[in-house]
């Protein structure tokens, strides 16, 4: 399967906490391909796709961060009106439940990439393939 590993890091919702995570990754030479931040009043979850997942996870764990790795889907679609809507329609028609999604910069200015977190990766991946949606592998993203 073309599933991509996403790292989620728990950070307290306090000044400088995100900066500390970024500094740690910088010092380890990790490059971030995609990032989104989900926040509540108390805490934030930093979701990251990195160019070297294993190294990033190891570094974060050694520094006592609460970290989890989740498999997500990454897609690349043309940068034109209605494209994301088409993706969501495909998932909706298959009753795939979408937890969250976020966009990130792809290789080309004619396309845009998304991380998609669903409740059933295999089911969603099959549906997207049948619908002609390009899926990215972890390697594709690392080489961007």
């Amino acid at each position, binding site marked *: 399967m073309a599933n991509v590993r996403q790292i989620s890091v728990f*950070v*307290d919702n306090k000044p400088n906490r995100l900066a500390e995570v970024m500094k740690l990754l910088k010092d380890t030479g990790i490059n971030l391909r995609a990032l989104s931040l989900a926040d509540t009043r108390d805490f934030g979850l930093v979701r990251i796709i990195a160019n070297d997942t294993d190294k990033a996870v190891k570094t974060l764990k050694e520094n*006592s961060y*609460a970290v*989890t790795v989740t498999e997500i889907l990454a897609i690349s679609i043309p940068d034109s009106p209605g494209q994301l809507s088409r993706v969501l329609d495909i998932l909706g028609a298959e009753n795939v439940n979408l*937890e969250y999604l976020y966009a990130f910069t792809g290789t080309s200015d004619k396309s845009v990439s998304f991380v998609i977190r669903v409740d059933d990766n295999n089911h969603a991946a099959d549906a997207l393939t049948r619908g002609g949606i390009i899926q990215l592998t972890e390697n594709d993203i690392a080489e961007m």
Partner: protein
Amino acid sequence: MEKYWNQEIETMSREEMKKLQDERLVAQVKHVYENVKYYRDLMDEKGVKPEDIKSTDDLHKLPFLTKSDLRDAYPYGLLAKPLSECVRIQSTSGTTGKRVVAFYTQHDIDLWEDCCARAITAAGGTNEDVCHVSYGYGLFTGGPGLNGGSHKVGCLTLPMSSGNTERQITFMRDLGSTILCCTPSYAAYIGETLNDMGLTPDDISLKAGIFGAEPWTEEMRQSIEKSLGIKAYDIYGLTETSGPGVAFECSEQTGMHINEDNFYPEIINPDTGEVLPEGEVGELVFTSLTKEAFPLLRYRTRDLCVLSRKKCSCGRTLIKMAKPMGRSDDMLIIRGVNVFPSQIETVLIENGYSPNYLIEVDRVNNTDTLDVNVEMNPDQVSDKVSDMQQKERALAEAMKTMLGINPKVHLVAPKSITRSEGKAVRVIDKRKLHD
């Protein structure tokens, strides 16, 4: 085979023990009445004379002493010997107000260290052991008490004091420490640090731990025993009566034997002062039977617990006290409900969380609020906010079942709550700032 430090006393029959206690009490009351004006005035006010106290059955006639008496009499008001005969001062941490200072003659030091030696022996300690003392040294009684007891037993004593945890572990490994003495919260932190250093209990030689000076739960005991690969024994004491060693745990681990040849215990109703029968929960009161310099009679500890004379499998006949349910000063009254930090700790450990937490109590629009910050374990994170909020709700629900009131639970990052090397700070009560 159970080993005793002082077999005669520790396994004495009830009749012989009562006889010893009666004799000691009569002499002690006379000593206090003659030498301590503060207590003599209290007795005179109540119309009690030393000759009215013929045995421990008459103890209830004597007035109580409380922490506020100790503050009023600071520093010399309760001293019963000339300073020229005193050799040591120890003191409380003074976190709840003015410090309390206690005085010791050489005889008092010997008795105290003897009590600690009983505790170390009950935990399996002999002159073959390396006793690693990580209680604070100084005015705090923890370090000096266990240090002295360890000398008496003949253990090779490592006076580490607290702090610099990695160095503590290095010493443990290099010198083969077998018995660790410290606060339970520091023992938990040493276990955590051991794991962080990539080590396991197999890399150290510890077999037992003697932990006291703060309340801890059965769940915390199990967690410490696992993280350090030891058997963990409770020890109880307070500066006002001498220090650690007033009571100690044996191999049965079902409560602590009180050294009742030195410290006579009573359980009272904290509201009325009435003495309660064995088995009822109330405030623990101690009368010092043997101390010379600072002999407190009927001192109210504010610790709530139960006494039991049930036969113990270790063979000791000394009366047992259950683990205190909490010191009445630790008890928080929130929206009229009594809450002990130990109850919150129990819920956390039962639900797979670490015992690292901080309770914040405040008053907003005349209503008390209870917020519990809980450190999550590194493997408890999810990528979904809803999962994390569900964890917070589940913990809040479990606490509500235990406490009867609704707390707000906030998960915080691992290691974000400050670790303690002595007594842990678990509660911040902001209501006091408003009063």
